């Protein structure tokens, strides 16, 4: 292993790999990525990999729209030897309460103003998109064709390979044990395989980001929370869009391979790093999905697994520098939607680390760590 680096990135998920790629693309040499297991072993490889620009805040709409544009170009951008499987067959978002209907109206108006061509649908119109949807629970819906999903392993693999070709070194099965800080400045990273001297460290450790922060003496306002998912046997193509609802608490998609993938949140989930699967999830998920998409009743579940959501106090990511520790950077707290902003995370964090803030197409000012002290929280109404 190298004993010094210009920049050390902790975490080989989409955030770490995309940032590594953009740093190298911008000409930065001496970038090292440390990953305690294999690439995409964290939330990235366990996620739904859904991407949507149907949000309720301008900031989230913009960040996700720009990322979707980048996902469209990803295979060429990274000269990938495979296909990242971007299926842009839309997100169908269901409203099942009056309050949600009102929110959707506002959202669609905002989205349209920002150039996102989403539309508000009646239950009958929603049926045209998903003919087997049980509309008993649907008062309205919104749909945006350009939303969709990708294969998270291939996306991360694409960034990793392109970064590697540009000289980035990846060390897998290498665990960061400590971050050395002297006089308020990062001076090195200690791993189980040796030490690396560096003045710049990016914390892109997903569900473990709080622990990484603590190593540098920084308390981050983050809470890890398990989220479960299940996968069915593959079937012929039936469902085009991702179907999702906040109030019914579920999302469901059919991946190109034919399997249905679905998940929901558990309101009683306790904070922690537990990634085990539960029977309760299996039962609750099945009850929800067979109610909304009854056609799936006879489809068999082949496996279930879990990953970590890393929640920030306002469910928006925390990007940028840490005032108390010079050389420590953050791309953390994605609160369940870090995959869909991955390309922008990479681009913006690379620009920020290299001091190119003036070149950014999107300012990170409102998404910094300082917002919690300033009381300037971001309150997104459409988190699932």
């Amino acid at each position, binding site marked *: 292993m190298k004993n010094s680096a210009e920049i050390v990135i902790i975490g080989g998920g989409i955030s770490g790999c995309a940032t590594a790629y953009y740093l190298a693309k911008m000409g930065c040499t001496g970038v090292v990525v440390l990953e305690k297991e294999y690439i995409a072993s964290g939330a990235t490889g366990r996620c739904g990999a859904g991407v949507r620009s149907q949000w309720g805040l301008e900031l989230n709409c913009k960040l996700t729209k720009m990322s979707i544009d980048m996902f469209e170009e990803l295979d060429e951008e990274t000269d990938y030897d495979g296909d990242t499987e971007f299926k842009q067959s839309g997100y169908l978002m269901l409203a099942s309460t009056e309050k949600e209907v009102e929110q959707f109206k506002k959202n669609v108006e905002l989205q349209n103003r920002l150039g996102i061509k989403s539309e508000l649908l009646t239950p009958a119109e929603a049926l045209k998109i998903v003919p087997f949807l049980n509309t008993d629970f649907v008062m309205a819906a919104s749909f945006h064709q350009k939303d969709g999903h990708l294969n998270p392993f291939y996306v991360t693999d694409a960034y990793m390979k392109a970064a590697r070709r540009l000289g980035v070194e990846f060390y897998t099965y290498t665990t960061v044990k400590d971050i050395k800080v002297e006089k308020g400045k990062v001076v090195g990273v200690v791993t189980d395989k040796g030490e690396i001297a560096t003045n710049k460290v990016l914390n892109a450790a997903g569900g473990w980001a709080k622990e990484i922060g603590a190593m540098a003496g920084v308390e981050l306002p983050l809470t890890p929370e398990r989220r479960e998912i299940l996968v069915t046997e593959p079937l012929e193509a039936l469902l085009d869009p991702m179907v999702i609802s906040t109030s019914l608490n579920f999302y469901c998609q059919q991946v190109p391979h034919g399997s249905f993938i679905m998940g929901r949140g558990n309101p009683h989930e306790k904070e922690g790093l537990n990634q085990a699967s539960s029977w309760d999830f299996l039962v609750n998920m099945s009850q929800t999905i067979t109610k909304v998409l009854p056609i799936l009743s006879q489809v068999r579940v082949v496996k*279930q697994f879990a990953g970590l959501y890393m929640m920030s106090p306002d469910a928006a990511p925390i990007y940028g520098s840490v005032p108390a520790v010079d050389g420590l950077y953050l791309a953390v707290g994605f609160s369940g939607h870090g995959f869909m902003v991955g390309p922008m995370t990479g681009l913006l964090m690379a620009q920020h680390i290299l001091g190119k803030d003036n070149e950014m197409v999107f300012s990170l000012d409102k998404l910094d760590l300082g917002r919690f002290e300033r009381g300037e929280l971001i309150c997104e109404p459409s988190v699932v």
Partner: protein
Amino acid sequence: MHNKNDLDKVIVCRCEDITLGEIRELINKGYTTIDEIKRVSRCGFGPCQGKTCMQLLLTELTQQKGKDIKEIKMPTHRPPTRNIELGVLARGEEDEK
């Protein structure tokens, strides 16, 4: 006796239709752990959850990489062990009729 090319055509994972040749190619590309190979190839992702192929993959990795079987980490087994219908699960029954 089989020659090397014949063996390349051997199906390792029956659920996902993956040959030994494809696995060898991935090992050559630098994927050296079961978890990585599973995820890029879908080997072991099918309904049987890798009952046969994981053992074959393990053998191939130990042979190609000269590693000891004990050094290679086996992936986590994901429940359920048997494939159950969503409708059956929704009714909260453990056994299908």
